């Protein structure tokens, strides 16, 4: 049995290490490590609850909106604030555009190079690529032989320069890359187009939030922006027109480029990769995108659970059933590290017992800065696959139609969704659903404004004098990577306790006291590994989860001084 460390794992957000045991070119076991710790949650207690979102937002600069939303929702839950309908819509617009933007970047810039061989694209025939594009990306204008010839020349010149930049050291020529040259060139051209597209599309966040990353117009009670059709600034008529244009052109790219490209990839790689990468088979979605004020029943993507890969039954979600253990994580619990603790009673005392850097391998019992969240003690996967599977099983309708259409086109079955490729497909389908829904939400906002409803903040409880002496709150949302929850306890008008359980803590958790692997540790078992020095197969499955490590590592300890001890030697 050989053990190989892959560190840094690149094309993810944050710092991650993976160690795999393998023989005969196959992975038999895996250990996932979050290798960075900031202690954001030590910084939150004692602060003004109305500023918590600014700090929590910095958990992640990639999914740069979702922690702000979870935070203001937690405060609004604690204080009993109902936000105006327009604030709900604006938040949906920010969230939905975050998803679309983040999913496109994930596919092209964080994931595609696991499937696309850059050097193979150099031998593509531009005319044949143009024909492939015309068949695949129907209606997309950049489809001429001249265009693909230019892209090929540009890449050739880049690689010939002796300065291969981002593409240098890639696993080009690895036997796992099997796409024909024309497909490689097509996807590489769209890699470059998506780089340009994303900076334009996310101007939606600049209009609604002032900037991206880290939009800034949130407020406990609503949004710190203005809706006034005739005003010189804020969301006026001109801004509405600009938003509509950005969302429309964004949807065009998703429909004509992203979704067909993922279909092309899935159809080609399905024999192997619609089978490999099966996670724990339990899926959890908090659901999100409320379309009225009645709660989870109005969510565009519903709340629910799936167990045992059964697409015929949706189980309810009770946040009280969520608990975290630190049996294999670099923390200590007063009651014993194997205890499962609900986040509202969460405790985190960092206690690093890993090897002293520099190290070659982490063989200590505890091996990650991530805790291990469990639902009723079981491992769950979160993310686009969880959301779509729950929606598919729960409601059918538009979601079922979109999923079935994609699967039929790529020659996949619904049960294939639980695989590596299934996650990739689910992410693309979700992007398409949300790109369309964004325009409907924008229309609702415009109609409200046309009817004279310009309210976007409920200021009734802005003044702390109106708050109860103590209050608990839970803010739930869906991040692009999956279910995200913030738990807060307020006391004396300040934050007494604050806890985050984030998507990558679910998906990338280490083992628990019973030795149950985290979701992607489990999914990596039986992954082929033709060359341990070039682990492209491992990256395929890992990236299908879209890891986001900075979010995932958190610590909170308002009372215990948070001493950190480091094992010496």
């Amino acid at each position, binding site marked *: 049995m050989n053990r190989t460390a892959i560190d840094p794992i690149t094309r993810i957000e944050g710092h991650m290490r993976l160690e795999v045991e393998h023989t005969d070119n196959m992975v038999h076991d895996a250990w996932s490590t979050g290798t960075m710790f900031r202690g954001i949650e030590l910084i939150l207690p004692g602060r003004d609850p109305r500023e918590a979102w600014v700090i929590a937002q910095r958990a992640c600069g990639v999914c740069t909106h979702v922690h702000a939303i979870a935070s203001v929702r937690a405060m609004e839950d604690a204080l009993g604030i109902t936000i105006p309908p327009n604030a709900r819509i604006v938040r949906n617009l920010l969230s939905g555009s975050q998803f679309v933007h983040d999913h496109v970047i994930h596919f092209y810039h964080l994931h595609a190079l696991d499937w696309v061989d850059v050097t193979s694209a150099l031998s593509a025939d531009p005319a044949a690529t143009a024909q492939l594009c015309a068949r695949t990306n129907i209606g997309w204008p950049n489809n001429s032989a001249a265009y693909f010839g230019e892209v090929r020349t540009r890449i050739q010149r880049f690689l010939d*320069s002796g*300065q291969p930049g981002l593409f240098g050291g890639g696993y080009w020529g690895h036997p796992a890359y099997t796409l024909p040259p024309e497909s490689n060139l097509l996807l590489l051209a769209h890699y470059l187009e998506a780089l340009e597209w994303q900076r334009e599309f996310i101007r939606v966040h600049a209009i609604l939030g002032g900037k991206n990353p880290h939009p800034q117009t949130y407020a406990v009670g609503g949004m710190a922006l203005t809706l006034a059709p005739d005003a010189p600034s*804020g969301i006026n008529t001109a801004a509405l027109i600009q938003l509509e244009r950005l969302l429309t052109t964004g949807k065009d790219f998703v429909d004509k480029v992203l979704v067909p490209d993922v279909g092309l990839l899935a159809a080609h790689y399905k024999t192997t990769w619609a089978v490999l990468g099966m996670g724990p088979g339990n899926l959890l979605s908090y659901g999100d995108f409320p379309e009225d004020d009645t709660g989870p029943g109005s969510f565009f993507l519903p709340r629910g659970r799936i167990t045992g890969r059964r697409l015929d039954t949706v189980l309810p979600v009770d946040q009280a059933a969520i608990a975290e253990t630190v049996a294999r994580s670099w923390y200590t619990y007063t009651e014993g590290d194997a205890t499962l603790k609900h986040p509202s009673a969460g405790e985190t005392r960092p206690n690093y017992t890993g090897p002293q850097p520099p190290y070659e391998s982490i063989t200590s019992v505890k091996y990650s800065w991530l805790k291990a969240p469990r639902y009723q003690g079981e491992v769950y996967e979160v993310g686009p696959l969880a959301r779509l599977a729950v929606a598919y099983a729960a409601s059918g309708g538009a979601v079922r139609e979109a999923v079935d259409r994609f699967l039929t086109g790529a020659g996949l079955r619904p049960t294939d969704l639980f695989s590596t490729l299934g996650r990739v497909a689910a992410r693309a389908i979700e992007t398409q659903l949300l790109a369309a829904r964004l325009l409907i939400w924008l229309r609702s906002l415009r109609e409200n404004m046309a009817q004279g409803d310009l309210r976007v903040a409920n200021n009734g409880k802005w003044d702390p004098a109106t708050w109860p002496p103590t209050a608990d709150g839970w803010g739930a949302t869906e991040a692009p990577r999956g279910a995200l929850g913030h738990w807060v306890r307020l006391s004396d008008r300040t934050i007494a306790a604050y806890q985050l359980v984030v998507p990558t803590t679910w998906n990338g958790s280490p083992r628990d006291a019973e030795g149950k692997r985290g979701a992607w540790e489990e999914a990596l078992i039986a992954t082929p590994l033709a060359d341990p020095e070039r682990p492209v197969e491992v990256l395929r499955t890992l990236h299908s989860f879209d890891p986001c490590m900075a979010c995932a590592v958190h610590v909170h300890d308002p009372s215990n001084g948070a001493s950190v001890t480091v094992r010496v030697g």
Partner: protein
Amino acid sequence: MARNGTTRTHDTARSQACTDGRSIAALLAQDGIGRRSFLRWCGYIAGMLALPVEPFGARIADALTTTPRLPVLWLNGQDCNGNIEGFLRAANPTPSELVLDRLSIDYVELLMAPSGKAAEARMADTIARYSRRYVLVVEGSVPTAANGAFCCVGGKAFTQILREAAADALAVVGVGSCAFDGGLPAAEGGVTGAIGVREFLAGSGKTIITLPGCPMNVDNLTATIVHYLTFAKWPELDDLGRPEFAYGGCLHRSCERRQHYQAGRFVLSWGDAGHQQGWCLLKMGCQGPGTPANCATVRFNSGTSWPVAAGAPCLGCTRPRFWDNLSNAFPTTASPLALHVVSGDTGGAR
């Protein structure tokens, strides 16, 4: 922009040598449409640096077409990736031009193709081949406690990686507020011994430039690099390592709501009539009057907007230790908060 003149003192002889005296107009006439937008951007950067478009636009264009392309190593410490994401929002040159045509980004974990040893080899290769010729960009703070165990990459402490990569760098550019002074991990309550790059590399003799902001504005990064490529020297810096062209002036001075400030028209609650009319956000906690930054003029996301334009108060994120002064930005009720800061409307007060 900022203080005119602070960056104008550089030699012009070199400029003429580079461009053969050609003007932007001549270059435009000679080159195709693709180059047209590039040259337009060169003129824009000249403006940011407070340089006249003639002859500096053409000179910048030349500087950006030299080979080899400037090698860049981009390290992430205790960070959120907000600055590398901000880099991807560059308007012109666009992100694909930056990564393919203008720079050689040889190491950046968010985007590079290889992982593990192959990724580490890329960094080692650039350090060896381009000694004193690569720029080291650092995002995130540097955790100095616990022997570096709070941030490890490839089994090495970030402190070690940073020290080794900085040793042969041409210069170090700390992007974002965490690299500036430790940022959020260094705020009250933090336990990781987080500090900024200037403090960590103090005494190394390196040129260390800081671009605070949460995140930084990518235009300030490109302008800083362009300044070096054009003049073979870095822009003038203040005593905290911030380029004068970007941080030399006060935000409040160029704020579009300033006329309302001067007329005494203040927003008093979210969504009130004054808010809808774009009045001053000072009484909602705006930190603009004490904040050195060019957000109001450069703006974000292709010049689309900035927080105050969108309706939110400035958080003062380019100032040292801003996280521990955040409460000022969330006044309990409308109050004359921070009025003392701007008494007399000096505008440019830091």
